[in-house]
């Protein structure tokens, strides 16, 4: 089965080609069916691959060579796929969650005239993400890496008549590109030092110690790659594109935030664990940036009123947790959280989409309330997701988040305390969102109230499936205190080597768990009491700063964007037109003036040019003759 891995990206590619070429002629329904089936087919193949990799007889990674991509002198980059534990797990997440999002979209996008085009983009998105995780070298990863950037650009700006949306799309692409430059430099460093981009050869040399670098060089390589991850996975300082990215259709947000795209950075660092294990400084930077982002995202989320914005900042924050895990060297834990997060974050976004649909496009939670009565399935599944993300025992998020926090504790208790604080905020803002949306009294118009309804099966079934996964998904990674086997860590262990040991005494572990669960429950109660009788007075002071996202967008605008534009304008006006061009024109004018004089001696312009040419040649001949004599 692993040898057939090329089928996995092939199906979505075919789906993209059919929908992309037939966007004018295909009926809408056909576009949806083709799009969804292609991802389903990939999922089935991925399942087969997963079980093969899981079986005891599986020996090491399977490399499937497709063709030689670049062969130039010493540079050899084949287009090769690599099947191992890490890639096979990501295949399942991408195609599984991706498929549910496709199914959901068939109903959600039903009334949009661009539906076939939408599915073409969606398939291309999945295809790119699959390339990203399947590549057997950094360049193939980079192809997928930029590919998902493109697809997010196309989908965020899907409703291209709205300028704000296309601005958001552009912002996403450009911020990703800034990160991509880091990735590019990282690749060139690896290539320069090790002469290869293939994982097998590069990690083999790292582990075998064939080319030993100074510690600085390891750190530089790791940091450059991490800059790529910062852009793609929306970490400080390049996170501001992600909240704006919700300009796209809601299922796209689910795809970007859960199954694809933002998890790429985590994948990349987990994949490069052999390198990061040699680069402790880089790891510390990863941990600090991750933790800071986790905190920043959580603080902003507590004061947002747009249902999707709350979720977007929650993603920023959760990604921060994953980087914290990577930074302390617990790579498998980060991957575990990627998986559980994919389930509950997809569920949250799809649930939000269901609400927005029922509300006729309204996204402001101040105008919602008591919606649960009208849409029970959406309410219950959403509640499950909230419990999961808040880390309530029994739900998937509990296991993965607990593992991150205890790994952080082993590394340094300070990391744990800050992380636990951010996790506490998570429980608060999620339940603030839940209570304001689903419970209490409806605060919208009568007309909107009349319109409230549960969504059709194509929407609710994916919600139910994801809700089930959000519950059971955590049991593959039980904490040490509860069980001797952490299945997911074991599964990934041949590929991903954690940095250090995260063993804790059982008592400490129970205690840490107790603290975080206690805090979460407390926060749920606080959120309930504060939203029971909501009155939305305009925020002042610190709350206003949070509502305005710490004014980071404004800051970037004032410090980077506008000065840069002004600088470019100055260059255009003065250096280019007045300076260089002015000089050239001056010369031109002088020549022209001279030619006007000379023309008096000649019959016409052409004659003049020939004259000058001949004169010049004679002079030059003479000069060269003269030089030779010297």
């Amino acid at each position: 089965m692993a040898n057939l891995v090329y089928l996995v990206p092939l199906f979505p590619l075919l789906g993209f080609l059919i929908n992309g070429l037939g966007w004018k002629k295909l009926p809408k329904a056909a576009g949806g069916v083709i799009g969804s089936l292609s991802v389903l087919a990939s999922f089935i193949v991925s399942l087969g691959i997963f079980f093969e990799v899981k079986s005891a007889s599986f020996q090491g990674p399977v490399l499937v060579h497709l063709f030689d991509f670049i062969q130039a002198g010493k540079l050899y980059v084949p287009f090769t796929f690599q099947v191992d534990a890490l890639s096979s797990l990501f295949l399942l997440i991408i195609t599984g969650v991706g498929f549910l999002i496709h199914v959901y979209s068939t109903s959600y996008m039903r009334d949009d005239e661009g539906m076939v085009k939408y599915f073409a983009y969606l398939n291309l998105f999945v295809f790119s993400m699959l390339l990203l995780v399947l590549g057997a070298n950094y360049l193939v990863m980079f192809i997928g890496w930029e590919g998902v950037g493109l697809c997010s650009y196309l989908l965020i700006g899907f409703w291209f008549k709205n300028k704000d949306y296309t601005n958001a799309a552009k912002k996403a692409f450009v911020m990703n590109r800034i990160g991509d430059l880091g990735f590019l430099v990282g690749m060139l460093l690896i290539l320069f030092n090790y002469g290869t981009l293939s994982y097998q050869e590069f990690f083999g040399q790292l582990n075998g110690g064939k080319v030993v670098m100074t510690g600085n060089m390891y750190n530089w390589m790791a940091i450059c790659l991490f800059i790529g991850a910062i852009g793609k996975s929306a970490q400080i300082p390049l996170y501001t594109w992600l909240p704006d990215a919700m300009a796209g259709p809601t299922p796209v947000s689910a795809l970007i935030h859960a199954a694809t795209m933002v998890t790429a950075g985590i994948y990349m660092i987990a994949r490069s664990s052999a390198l990061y294990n040699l680069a402790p400084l880089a790891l510390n930077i990863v941990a600090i940036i991750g933790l800071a982002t986790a905190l920043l995202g959580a603080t902003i989320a507590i004061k947002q009123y747009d249902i999707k914005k709350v979720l977007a900042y929650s993603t920023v924050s959760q990604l921060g947790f994953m980087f914290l895990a990577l930074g302390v060297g617990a790579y498998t834990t980060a991957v575990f959280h990627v998986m559980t997060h994919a389930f509950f974050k997809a569920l949250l976004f799809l649930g939000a989409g269901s609400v927005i649909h029922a509300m006729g496009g309204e996204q402001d939670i101040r105008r919602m309330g008591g919606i649960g009565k009208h849409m029970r399935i959406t309410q219950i599944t959403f509640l499950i997701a909230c419990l999961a993300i808040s880390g309530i025992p029994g739900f998937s998020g509990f296991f993965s988040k607990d593992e991150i926090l205890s790994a952080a504790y082993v590394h340094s208790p300070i990391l744990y305390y800050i992380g636990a604080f951010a996790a506490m905020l998570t429980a608060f803002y999620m339940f603030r969102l839940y209570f304001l949306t689903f419970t209490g009294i409806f605060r919208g118009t009568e007309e909107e109230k009349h319109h409230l309804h549960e969504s059709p099966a194509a929407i609710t079934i994916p919600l139910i499936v994801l809700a089930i996964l959000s519950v059971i998904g955590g049991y593959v990674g039980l904490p040490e205190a509860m069980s001797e086997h952490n299945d997911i860590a074991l599964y990934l262990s041949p590929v991903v080597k954690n940095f250090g040991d995260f063993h804790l005494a059982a008592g400490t572990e129970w205690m840490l768990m107790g603290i975080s669960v206690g805090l979460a429950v407390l926060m749920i109660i606080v959120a309930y009491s504060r939203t029971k009788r909501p009155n939305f007075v305009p925020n002042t002071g610190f709350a206003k700063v949070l509502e305005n996202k710490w004014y980071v967008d404004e800051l970037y605008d004032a410090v980077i964007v506008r000065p840069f534009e002004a600088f470019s304008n100055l260059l255009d006006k003065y250096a280019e037109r007045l300076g260089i061009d002015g000089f050239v024109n001056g010369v031109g004018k002088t020549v022209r003036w001279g030619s006007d004089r000379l023309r008096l001696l000649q019959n016409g312009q052409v004659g003049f040019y020939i004259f000058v040419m001949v004169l010049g040649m004679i002079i030059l001949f003479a000069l060269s003759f003269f030089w030779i004599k010297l």
Partner: protein
Amino acid sequence: MILVLLIVIPLLAGILSFSVKNDGAKVLALIGSLITLGISGYLCSSSGTAPITWSVPWIPSLGTQFSLAADGMSAMLCLLTSIVFVIVIISSWNKTFEKPNSFWGLMMLSQTGLLGVFLAYDALVFYVFWEVALIPVYFLASRWGGEKRIQATFKFFVYTFVGSLMMLAGIIFLAQQNPGGSNYSWLSIVHAGASLPPATQQWLFWLIFIAFAIKMPIFPFHTWQPDTYEQSPTPVTIILSALMVKMGLFAVLRWLFPALPAGVAFWSDTIVVLSIIGIVYASCIAMVQTDMKRLVAYSSIAHMGLMSAAAFSSTNIGMHGIMVQMFNHGINITGMWLIVSMVENRWGTRDMTKLGGMASVAPRMAIAFVIISLANIALPLTNGFVGEFMLFNGIFQGASDYHITFMVIAGLGVILGAVYTLNMIQKTTYGNTVEMIVTKDLTVNEYIGVAIVIALIIFLGVYPKPLLDLTSGIAGMLVP
């Protein structure tokens, strides 16, 4: 013999064009270009391994022979030239030019000159073809160009004329160095140049290089370019930007590098710095342009800057990247101009502040535009990527002490390129629809032209091997 055919056929087509009436010239040009395309294709398939040469005595008293040679680089550029000409002719099939016979006649003469430049194996032959390629362009632009064409072409003329004369002086000087009397053959020139003392090579370098630097163009010798591109009719703009700029780079690789190795080594850091300044500088200026043609012109300056930075970093991978990128840049910028001219036809303006909504009214055109733009910013799996990756590699592995700094600053072009290209798409393609003069999506002939471009973008982006194999020999010769 095949090399002579390659030059004679466009020449004949050009001369005949002057004498036929109206549309005949167009047909003649197309037939001529298709035949050259066929021959170039054959050349590519057979010149990969050993160069093909051909030579007859020309002016023995001066020590010059009419000799031609085709290696991988020449074959690749001849192929590019003939593909671009075919695309240009097809996509402007419906356009009516005043005096079409002179227009197409001059175009074909220019093609003759271009092919001659790429094939010349004798410095004087090279110089003559260099002028043969440029002079028709001068007439084309000044006769069929836009409002300010006289000013623009005058500037173009002054620039190139100054450059050409200095180059000629340099060539003559080199030819005189031959111990057995003046000799212009490539071998003799290279031998003469390389045995000059370094100090001489250092000043001689500028005498010859200025012409090429203007043609590429390298900052700060570039200001003729935006004006000329803006004022020329689209077919001429395409010839200038897709092909003529390659003459400069080609000449650097074919003549300057082998002939003046010490001069090149001495000045290479300077040129790399200038090129990199050019990348950032041109990208910044492209960001604030409102005229599509000027934006594309500055974008092209930035791209050429990257190529010349890689050239003067003197690494094998960089040289190989240049070969690939010369071809791909030619294809992409051709596509860019095609779209720009379609926009101008339909909306009557190139001012981006007055455009919008192409995706709503002309979706096919919009899709093509987006794909070509993505190739312009070197998205992976488009043809722009492979070359750019190799170029960055080349700069990165360069011998200079500052090689990593150079690469990182050059890399800023990657980000800035995305900014201005996506700005252009946003302003022209998205948003509310601006009323058009002619409401029409792609016509059949435009469709064919754009389709060839896109097919090449994707094919060479996914499978660059043919291009890489064709040029690996010459890249290895330049820098092993």
